[in-house]
Protein backbone atom coordinates (compact mmCIF):
# COMPACT_ATOMS: atom_id res chain seq x y z
CA UNK A 1 0.00 0.00 0.00
CA UNK A 2 1.41 3.42 -0.88
CA UNK A 3 1.27 6.43 1.38
CA UNK A 4 -1.85 8.55 1.11
CA UNK A 5 -0.48 11.91 -0.08
CA UNK A 6 -3.11 13.87 1.84
CA UNK A 7 -1.27 13.09 5.09
CA UNK A 8 2.14 14.30 6.20
CA UNK A 9 4.54 11.36 6.48
CA UNK A 10 3.44 9.31 9.53
CA UNK A 11 0.39 11.53 10.15
CA UNK A 12 1.83 13.97 12.70
CA UNK A 13 3.01 17.44 11.68
CA UNK A 14 6.73 18.18 11.86
CA UNK A 15 6.42 20.52 14.85
CA UNK A 16 4.76 17.78 16.89
CA UNK A 17 7.33 15.20 15.85
CA UNK A 18 10.17 17.53 16.90
CA UNK A 19 8.59 17.92 20.34
CA UNK A 20 8.17 14.14 20.71
CA UNK A 21 11.69 13.49 19.43
CA UNK A 22 13.18 15.86 22.00
CA UNK A 23 11.23 14.05 24.72
CA UNK A 24 12.49 10.69 23.42
CA UNK A 25 16.13 11.81 23.58
CA UNK A 26 15.76 13.05 27.17
CA UNK A 27 13.91 9.83 28.04
CA UNK A 28 16.84 7.76 26.74
CA UNK A 29 19.27 9.98 28.65
CA UNK A 30 17.36 9.45 31.94
CA UNK A 31 16.24 5.79 31.77
CA UNK A 32 12.97 5.12 33.55
CA UNK A 33 12.12 8.79 34.15
CA UNK A 34 8.78 9.90 32.73
CA UNK A 35 9.24 12.89 30.43
CA UNK A 36 6.11 15.05 30.08
CA UNK A 37 5.12 15.74 26.47
CA UNK A 38 2.31 17.62 24.75
CA UNK A 39 0.31 14.59 23.65
CA UNK A 40 -1.93 15.26 20.65
CA UNK A 41 -5.42 14.07 19.92
CA UNK A 42 -5.16 11.13 17.57
CA UNK A 43 -7.84 9.71 15.29
CA UNK A 44 -8.55 6.97 17.83
CA UNK A 45 -9.79 7.07 21.42
CA UNK A 46 -7.54 7.29 24.45
CA UNK A 47 -6.83 3.79 25.65
CA UNK A 48 -6.31 2.51 22.12
CA UNK A 49 -2.61 3.21 22.04
CA UNK A 50 -2.47 6.92 21.27
CA UNK A 51 0.82 7.23 23.15
CA UNK A 52 2.43 4.34 21.34
CA UNK A 53 1.13 5.61 18.01
CA UNK A 54 2.65 9.05 18.57
CA UNK A 55 6.01 7.55 19.53
CA UNK A 56 5.93 5.23 16.51
CA UNK A 57 5.05 8.16 14.24
CA UNK A 58 8.05 10.09 15.55
CA UNK A 59 10.54 7.26 14.98
CA UNK A 60 9.28 5.66 11.75
CA UNK A 61 11.25 6.13 8.52
CA UNK A 62 10.08 5.07 5.05
CA UNK A 63 12.47 2.11 5.09
CA UNK A 64 11.00 0.57 8.23
CA UNK A 65 8.99 -2.63 8.50
CA UNK A 66 6.31 -2.32 11.17
CA UNK A 67 4.78 -5.04 13.32
CA UNK A 68 1.93 -4.31 15.73
CA UNK A 69 0.81 -6.70 18.44
CA UNK A 70 -2.00 -6.58 20.95
CA UNK A 71 -1.46 -9.00 23.88
CA UNK A 72 0.95 -10.88 21.63
CA UNK A 73 -1.48 -11.24 18.72
CA UNK A 74 -1.09 -9.63 15.30
CA UNK A 75 -4.69 -10.22 14.27
CA UNK A 76 -6.76 -8.47 16.94
CA UNK A 77 -8.69 -5.24 16.37
CA UNK A 78 -6.24 -2.84 18.01
CA UNK A 79 -3.22 -4.31 16.21
CA UNK A 80 -4.93 -4.46 12.83
CA UNK A 81 -6.22 -0.89 12.98
CA UNK A 82 -2.88 0.61 14.06
CA UNK A 83 -1.05 -1.36 11.37
CA UNK A 84 -3.49 -0.07 8.75
CA UNK A 85 -3.14 3.47 10.11
CA UNK A 86 0.59 3.49 9.43
CA UNK A 87 0.23 1.75 6.09
CA UNK A 88 -2.07 4.55 5.06
CA UNK A 89 -0.25 7.54 6.58
CA UNK A 90 3.41 6.46 6.33
CA UNK A 91 3.35 3.89 3.52
CA UNK A 92 5.67 1.61 5.50
CA UNK A 93 5.96 -2.12 4.94
CA UNK A 94 4.25 -4.27 7.56
CA UNK A 95 4.87 -7.79 8.79
CA UNK A 96 3.59 -10.22 11.36
CA UNK A 97 7.00 -11.85 11.78
CA UNK A 98 8.99 -10.61 14.75
CA UNK A 99 12.34 -11.23 13.06
CA UNK A 100 11.48 -9.16 9.98
CA UNK A 101 10.25 -6.06 11.82
CA UNK A 102 12.43 -3.01 12.50
CA UNK A 103 9.80 -1.23 14.62
CA UNK A 104 7.37 -3.22 16.80
CA UNK A 105 4.51 -1.46 18.55
CA UNK A 106 3.09 -3.55 21.36
CA UNK A 107 0.21 -3.55 23.76
CA UNK A 108 0.98 -5.53 26.91
CA UNK A 109 3.48 -8.13 25.66
CA UNK A 110 7.13 -8.54 24.68
CA UNK A 111 7.58 -10.96 21.76
CA UNK A 112 8.94 -14.38 22.71
CA UNK A 113 11.74 -14.24 20.12
CA UNK A 114 14.72 -12.22 21.43
CA UNK A 115 14.93 -8.79 19.79
CA UNK A 116 18.11 -7.56 18.08
CA UNK A 117 20.07 -4.31 18.09
CA UNK A 118 18.38 -3.26 14.85
CA UNK A 119 14.89 -3.29 16.35
CA UNK A 120 12.84 -0.76 18.32
CA UNK A 121 10.05 -1.84 20.67
CA UNK A 122 7.32 0.77 21.29
CA UNK A 123 4.98 0.13 24.22
CA UNK A 124 1.45 1.47 24.61
CA UNK A 125 1.10 2.57 28.22
CA UNK A 126 -2.20 3.29 30.01
CA UNK A 127 -0.93 4.51 33.44
CA UNK A 128 2.79 5.37 33.32
CA UNK A 129 3.10 6.25 37.01
CA UNK A 130 3.91 3.11 39.04
CA UNK A 131 3.00 4.91 42.27
CA UNK A 132 -0.34 6.27 41.04
CA UNK A 133 -2.61 3.75 42.77
CA UNK A 134 -0.65 4.25 45.99
CA UNK A 135 -0.54 8.06 45.80
CA UNK A 136 -3.04 9.76 43.51
CA UNK A 137 -1.47 13.24 43.60
CA UNK A 138 0.94 13.97 40.74
CA UNK A 139 2.69 16.63 42.85
CA UNK A 140 3.50 13.97 45.46
CA UNK A 141 4.58 11.17 43.12
CA UNK A 142 6.86 13.62 41.31
CA UNK A 143 8.49 14.48 44.64
CA UNK A 144 8.79 10.78 45.52
CA UNK A 145 10.68 10.10 42.28
CA UNK A 146 12.89 13.15 42.86
CA UNK A 147 13.75 11.98 46.38
CA UNK A 148 14.01 8.31 45.32
CA UNK A 149 11.38 7.60 48.00
CA UNK A 150 10.01 4.22 46.97
CA UNK A 151 9.20 2.69 50.36
CA UNK A 152 5.49 2.78 49.57
CA UNK A 153 5.97 0.39 46.67
CA UNK A 154 7.68 -2.15 48.91
CA UNK A 155 4.84 -1.77 51.42
CA UNK A 156 2.42 -2.64 48.63
CA UNK A 157 4.38 -5.76 47.68
CA UNK A 158 4.67 -6.67 51.36
CA UNK A 159 0.89 -6.37 51.79
CA UNK A 160 0.54 -8.75 48.84
CA UNK A 161 2.60 -11.31 50.76
CA UNK A 162 0.74 -10.70 54.03
CA UNK A 163 -2.61 -11.20 52.33
CA UNK A 164 -1.90 -13.88 49.73
CA UNK A 165 1.29 -15.57 50.92
CA UNK A 166 3.16 -14.46 47.80
CA UNK A 167 3.54 -11.35 45.66
CA UNK A 168 0.21 -11.47 43.83
CA UNK A 169 1.02 -8.69 41.36
CA UNK A 170 0.96 -10.57 38.05
CA UNK A 171 1.22 -7.77 35.47
CA UNK A 172 2.56 -4.19 35.40
CA UNK A 173 5.06 -5.51 37.94
CA UNK A 174 7.24 -2.56 39.05
CA UNK A 175 10.90 -2.48 38.08
CA UNK A 176 13.86 -0.37 39.12
CA UNK A 177 15.94 0.96 36.24
CA UNK A 178 19.72 1.39 36.57
CA UNK A 179 19.35 1.52 40.34
CA UNK A 180 17.47 4.80 40.26
CA UNK A 181 13.93 5.21 38.91
CA UNK A 182 11.07 2.85 39.68
CA UNK A 183 9.19 2.36 36.43
CA UNK A 184 5.92 0.83 35.29
CA UNK A 185 6.78 -1.69 32.55
CA UNK A 186 3.22 -1.17 31.17
CA UNK A 187 0.75 -4.01 31.83
CA UNK A 188 2.99 -6.76 30.45
CA UNK A 189 2.77 -10.04 32.40
CA UNK A 190 5.60 -10.33 34.92
CA UNK A 191 6.74 -13.32 32.83
CA UNK A 192 8.08 -10.69 30.39
CA UNK A 193 9.95 -8.57 32.95
CA UNK A 194 13.31 -10.36 32.64
CA UNK A 195 13.23 -9.81 28.86
CA UNK A 196 13.46 -6.03 29.36
CA UNK A 197 17.25 -6.25 29.58
CA UNK A 198 17.52 -6.57 25.82
CA UNK A 199 19.56 -5.44 22.80
CA UNK A 200 16.75 -3.35 21.28
CA UNK A 201 15.75 0.20 22.17
CA UNK A 202 12.52 0.29 24.23
CA UNK A 203 10.26 3.34 24.09
CA UNK A 204 7.09 3.86 26.14
CA UNK A 205 4.27 6.24 25.20
CA UNK A 206 1.27 7.17 27.37
CA UNK A 207 -1.05 9.42 25.34
CA UNK A 208 -3.78 10.32 27.79
CA UNK A 209 -1.28 10.75 30.64
CA UNK A 210 1.14 12.66 28.38
CA UNK A 211 4.32 10.84 29.35
CA UNK A 212 7.18 9.29 27.41
CA UNK A 213 9.89 7.12 28.93
CA UNK A 214 12.56 4.80 27.59
CA UNK A 215 15.14 2.10 28.19
CA UNK A 216 18.42 2.17 26.26
CA UNK A 217 19.70 -1.27 25.20
CA UNK A 218 21.22 -3.43 27.96
CA UNK A 219 19.91 -1.18 30.73
CA UNK A 220 19.75 -2.86 34.13
CA UNK A 221 16.07 -3.53 34.84
CA UNK A 222 15.41 -5.19 38.20
CA UNK A 223 11.96 -6.38 39.27
CA UNK A 224 11.33 -5.29 42.86
CA UNK A 225 11.23 -8.11 45.40
CA UNK A 226 12.41 -9.25 48.83
CA UNK A 227 15.35 -11.50 49.73
CA UNK A 228 12.99 -14.14 51.17
CA UNK A 229 10.34 -13.63 48.47
CA UNK A 230 12.39 -13.33 45.28
CA UNK A 231 10.80 -12.24 42.02
CA UNK A 232 9.43 -15.08 39.93
CA UNK A 233 8.51 -14.81 36.25
CA UNK A 234 5.41 -16.98 36.43
CA UNK A 235 3.21 -18.46 33.71
CA UNK A 236 0.41 -21.01 33.49
CA UNK A 237 1.77 -24.51 34.24
CA UNK A 238 0.77 -26.01 30.91
CA UNK A 239 2.27 -26.56 27.47
CA UNK A 240 0.72 -24.65 24.55
CA UNK A 241 -2.18 -26.73 23.20
CA UNK A 242 -1.34 -25.79 19.61
CA UNK A 243 2.48 -25.86 19.42
CA UNK A 244 3.45 -27.66 22.62
CA UNK A 245 5.80 -24.91 23.82
CA UNK A 246 6.56 -25.11 27.53
CA UNK A 247 8.52 -21.86 27.80
CA UNK A 248 6.13 -19.29 26.28
CA UNK A 249 3.49 -17.09 27.92
CA UNK A 250 0.04 -18.65 27.59
CA UNK A 251 -3.51 -17.35 27.22
CA UNK A 252 -6.29 -19.35 28.85
CA UNK A 253 -9.23 -19.89 26.50
CA UNK A 254 -12.61 -21.08 27.82
CA UNK A 255 -13.96 -23.72 25.43
CA UNK A 256 -17.54 -24.40 26.57
CA UNK A 257 -20.00 -23.94 29.44
CA UNK A 258 -18.69 -27.02 31.24
CA UNK A 259 -15.37 -25.52 32.22
CA UNK A 260 -13.22 -27.03 29.47
CA UNK A 261 -10.28 -24.79 28.65
CA UNK A 262 -7.15 -24.70 26.56
CA UNK A 263 -3.88 -22.85 26.97
CA UNK A 264 -2.30 -21.32 23.87
CA UNK A 265 0.71 -19.10 23.19
CA UNK A 266 -0.19 -15.44 23.49
CA UNK A 267 2.49 -14.64 20.87
CA UNK A 268 0.73 -15.73 17.66
CA UNK A 269 3.80 -15.36 15.44
CA UNK A 270 5.91 -17.46 17.83
CA UNK A 271 3.22 -20.17 17.93
CA UNK A 272 2.75 -20.24 14.14
CA UNK A 273 6.53 -20.37 13.68
CA UNK A 274 6.81 -23.38 15.97
CA UNK A 275 3.97 -25.20 14.23
CA UNK A 276 5.55 -24.45 10.85
CA UNK A 277 8.75 -26.02 12.21
CA UNK A 278 6.84 -29.18 13.03
CA UNK A 279 6.08 -28.76 16.74
CA UNK A 280 2.56 -29.78 17.61
CA UNK A 281 0.61 -29.59 20.86
CA UNK A 282 -2.18 -31.95 21.86
CA UNK A 283 -4.88 -29.92 20.06
CA UNK A 284 -2.64 -28.57 17.29
CA UNK A 285 -2.79 -29.16 13.58
CA UNK A 286 0.02 -28.39 11.10
CA UNK A 287 -0.03 -24.81 9.80
CA UNK A 288 -0.80 -25.83 6.20
CA UNK A 289 -3.99 -27.65 7.20
CA UNK A 290 -4.94 -24.73 9.45
CA UNK A 291 -4.89 -22.32 6.50
CA UNK A 292 -7.03 -24.44 4.16
Amino acid sequence: MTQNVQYNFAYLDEQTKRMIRRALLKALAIPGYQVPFASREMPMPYGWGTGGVQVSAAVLTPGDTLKVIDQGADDTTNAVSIRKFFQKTAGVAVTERTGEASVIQTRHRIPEAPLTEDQILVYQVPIPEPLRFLEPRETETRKMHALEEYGLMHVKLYEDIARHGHIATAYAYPVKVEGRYVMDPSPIPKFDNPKMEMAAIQLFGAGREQRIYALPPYSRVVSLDFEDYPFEASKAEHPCALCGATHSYLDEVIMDDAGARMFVCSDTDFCAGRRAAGHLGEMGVPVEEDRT
Partner: protein
Amino acid sequence: MQTEALAGGFADAPIEAAIAFRAAMGAMARPGRIHDIRGAMPPAPLSVAAGTLLLVLADGTTPVHLAGGCDTSAVRDWLTFHTGAPLARPQQASFAVGVWAELLPLEAYRIGVPDYPDRSATMIVEMQGLTDTGARLTGPGIQDTHGLNLPDLAAFQGNRALFPLGLDFFFTAGAQVAALPRTTHVEAG
Protein backbone atom coordinates in the same frame (compact mmCIF):
# COMPACT_ATOMS: atom_id res chain seq x y z
CA MET B 1 19.82 39.22 5.33
CA GLN B 2 21.84 37.24 2.81
CA THR B 3 19.96 34.90 0.51
CA GLU B 4 22.43 32.10 1.44
CA ALA B 5 20.49 31.79 4.68
CA LEU B 6 17.49 30.50 2.73
CA ALA B 7 19.41 27.54 1.29
CA GLY B 8 20.73 24.43 3.00
CA GLY B 9 17.54 23.17 4.59
CA PHE B 10 15.93 19.76 4.11
CA ALA B 11 14.71 19.09 0.58
CA ASP B 12 12.02 16.73 1.88
CA ALA B 13 11.64 17.63 5.56
CA PRO B 14 9.41 14.80 6.89
CA ILE B 15 11.54 12.05 5.35
CA GLU B 16 15.00 13.54 5.89
CA ALA B 17 14.18 14.59 9.45
CA ALA B 18 12.88 11.09 10.25
CA ILE B 19 16.03 9.40 8.93
CA ALA B 20 18.30 11.92 10.68
CA PHE B 21 16.41 11.53 13.95
CA ARG B 22 16.92 7.77 13.89
CA ALA B 23 20.67 8.41 13.69
CA ALA B 24 20.46 10.87 16.59
CA MET B 25 18.33 8.48 18.65
CA GLY B 26 20.63 5.56 17.87
CA ALA B 27 23.58 7.67 19.02
CA MET B 28 21.90 8.70 22.29
CA ALA B 29 20.67 5.15 23.00
CA ARG B 30 24.11 3.62 22.35
CA PRO B 31 26.69 6.04 23.74
CA GLY B 32 29.90 6.20 21.76
CA ARG B 33 28.53 4.58 18.59
CA ILE B 34 29.24 6.75 15.56
CA HIS B 35 26.34 7.26 13.14
CA ASP B 36 26.10 9.00 9.77
CA ILE B 37 23.71 11.94 9.75
CA ARG B 38 23.07 14.35 6.92
CA GLY B 39 20.46 16.41 5.15
CA ALA B 40 21.27 20.00 6.08
CA MET B 41 23.91 22.18 4.41
CA PRO B 42 24.54 24.83 7.06
CA PRO B 43 26.93 27.77 6.61
CA ALA B 44 30.50 27.40 7.92
CA PRO B 45 31.68 26.79 10.56
CA LEU B 46 28.71 24.52 11.38
CA SER B 47 29.20 20.89 10.34
CA VAL B 48 26.60 19.03 8.33
CA ALA B 49 25.89 16.87 11.38
CA ALA B 50 25.41 19.80 13.77
CA GLY B 51 23.23 21.64 11.28
CA THR B 52 21.12 18.54 10.68
CA LEU B 53 20.67 17.97 14.43
CA LEU B 54 19.44 21.55 14.80
CA LEU B 55 16.97 21.19 11.93
CA VAL B 56 15.64 17.95 13.44
CA LEU B 57 15.35 19.15 17.04
CA ALA B 58 15.25 22.95 17.33
CA ASP B 59 12.20 25.16 16.83
CA GLY B 60 10.59 28.27 18.25
CA THR B 61 10.27 26.70 21.70
CA THR B 62 13.96 25.81 22.11
CA PRO B 63 16.46 28.64 22.71
CA VAL B 64 19.82 27.90 21.05
CA HIS B 65 23.20 29.17 22.23
CA LEU B 66 25.79 29.68 19.50
CA ALA B 67 29.18 29.51 21.21
CA GLY B 68 32.22 31.52 20.12
CA GLY B 69 33.14 31.00 16.49
CA CYS B 70 29.69 29.56 15.66
CA ASP B 71 28.07 32.88 16.49
CA THR B 72 28.37 34.43 13.02
CA SER B 73 25.67 36.38 11.26
CA ALA B 74 25.48 33.68 8.55
CA VAL B 75 24.79 30.96 11.14
CA ARG B 76 22.34 33.16 13.05
CA ASP B 77 20.39 33.96 9.89
CA TRP B 78 20.38 30.35 8.73
CA LEU B 79 19.23 28.99 12.06
CA THR B 80 16.56 31.64 12.49
CA PHE B 81 15.17 31.16 9.00
CA HIS B 82 15.07 27.36 9.11
CA THR B 83 14.05 26.69 12.70
CA GLY B 84 12.73 29.93 14.20
CA ALA B 85 14.73 29.12 17.34
CA PRO B 86 15.47 32.13 19.53
CA LEU B 87 19.15 32.77 20.20
CA ALA B 88 20.03 32.68 23.87
CA ARG B 89 22.73 32.88 26.48
CA PRO B 90 23.93 29.58 28.03
CA GLN B 91 21.65 29.98 31.06
CA GLN B 92 18.50 29.86 28.93
CA ALA B 93 19.61 27.51 26.19
CA SER B 94 17.95 24.18 25.35
CA PHE B 95 20.69 23.53 22.81
CA ALA B 96 24.23 24.85 22.67
CA VAL B 97 26.52 24.48 19.65
CA GLY B 98 30.24 25.07 19.40
CA VAL B 99 33.73 23.66 19.82
CA TRP B 100 34.53 22.32 23.27
CA ALA B 101 36.77 25.17 24.46
CA GLU B 102 34.19 27.77 23.51
CA LEU B 103 31.24 25.96 25.14
CA LEU B 104 32.94 26.02 28.55
CA PRO B 105 32.21 26.53 31.39
CA LEU B 106 29.57 23.78 31.60
CA GLU B 107 28.29 25.21 34.89
CA ALA B 108 26.57 27.94 32.87
CA TYR B 109 24.01 25.54 31.35
CA ARG B 110 20.76 24.21 32.73
CA ILE B 111 21.10 20.73 34.27
CA GLY B 112 17.40 20.29 35.11
CA VAL B 113 15.80 20.25 38.55
CA PRO B 114 15.12 17.19 40.77
CA ASP B 115 11.40 17.17 39.87
CA TYR B 116 12.13 17.65 36.15
CA PRO B 117 15.62 16.38 35.27
CA ASP B 118 14.63 16.53 31.58
CA ARG B 119 14.68 20.33 31.65
CA SER B 120 18.38 20.38 30.87
CA ALA B 121 20.47 21.58 27.95
CA THR B 122 21.64 19.34 25.13
CA MET B 123 25.16 20.20 23.99
CA ILE B 124 26.30 19.82 20.38
CA VAL B 125 30.10 19.69 20.48
CA GLU B 126 31.85 20.26 17.16
CA MET B 127 34.89 17.98 16.83
CA GLN B 128 37.76 17.60 14.33
CA GLY B 129 36.84 13.95 13.91
CA LEU B 130 35.21 11.03 15.70
CA THR B 131 36.90 7.71 16.46
CA ASP B 132 35.92 4.84 18.70
CA THR B 133 39.18 4.96 20.62
CA GLY B 134 40.13 7.11 23.59
CA ALA B 135 37.92 7.26 26.64
CA ARG B 136 36.32 4.03 27.88
CA LEU B 137 32.54 4.28 28.22
CA THR B 138 30.26 2.03 30.26
CA GLY B 139 26.62 2.35 31.28
CA PRO B 140 23.11 2.05 29.86
CA GLY B 141 23.11 1.41 26.12
CA ILE B 142 26.56 -0.22 26.18
CA GLN B 143 26.81 -4.02 26.43
CA ASP B 144 30.38 -4.17 27.71
CA THR B 145 32.46 -1.09 26.99
CA HIS B 146 32.77 1.30 24.10
CA GLY B 147 35.44 3.83 23.11
CA LEU B 148 35.09 7.42 21.96
CA ASN B 149 37.54 10.28 21.55
CA LEU B 150 36.27 12.78 24.12
CA PRO B 151 37.63 16.32 24.47
CA ASP B 152 37.90 15.92 28.26
CA LEU B 153 37.43 13.31 31.00
CA ALA B 154 36.91 15.12 34.29
CA ALA B 155 34.10 17.26 32.90
CA PHE B 156 32.09 14.17 31.88
CA GLN B 157 32.83 12.38 35.14
CA GLY B 158 31.55 15.45 36.98
CA ASN B 159 28.46 15.49 34.79
CA ARG B 160 27.82 11.80 35.55
CA ALA B 161 28.02 12.55 39.25
CA LEU B 162 25.07 14.93 38.90
CA PHE B 163 22.76 12.12 37.73
CA PRO B 164 19.76 12.17 37.42
CA LEU B 165 20.49 15.83 36.65
CA GLY B 166 23.08 16.80 34.09
CA LEU B 167 23.82 17.66 30.48
CA ASP B 168 23.55 15.40 27.46
CA PHE B 169 26.11 15.65 24.68
CA PHE B 170 26.17 15.11 20.95
CA PHE B 171 29.58 15.13 19.25
CA THR B 172 29.59 16.10 15.61
CA ALA B 173 32.24 16.03 12.89
CA GLY B 174 31.47 16.34 9.20
CA ALA B 175 28.44 14.15 8.61
CA GLN B 176 28.93 11.96 11.69
CA VAL B 177 27.40 12.05 15.13
CA ALA B 178 28.00 10.27 18.45
CA ALA B 179 26.48 10.98 21.83
CA LEU B 180 27.18 10.81 25.55
CA PRO B 181 24.14 11.01 27.82
CA ARG B 182 24.49 11.86 31.51
CA THR B 183 24.27 8.17 32.48
CA THR B 184 27.56 7.10 30.88
CA HIS B 185 30.57 6.38 33.08
CA VAL B 186 33.76 7.72 31.55
CA GLU B 187 37.27 6.44 32.27
CA ALA B 188 40.66 6.92 30.64
CA GLY B 189 41.00 4.27 27.91
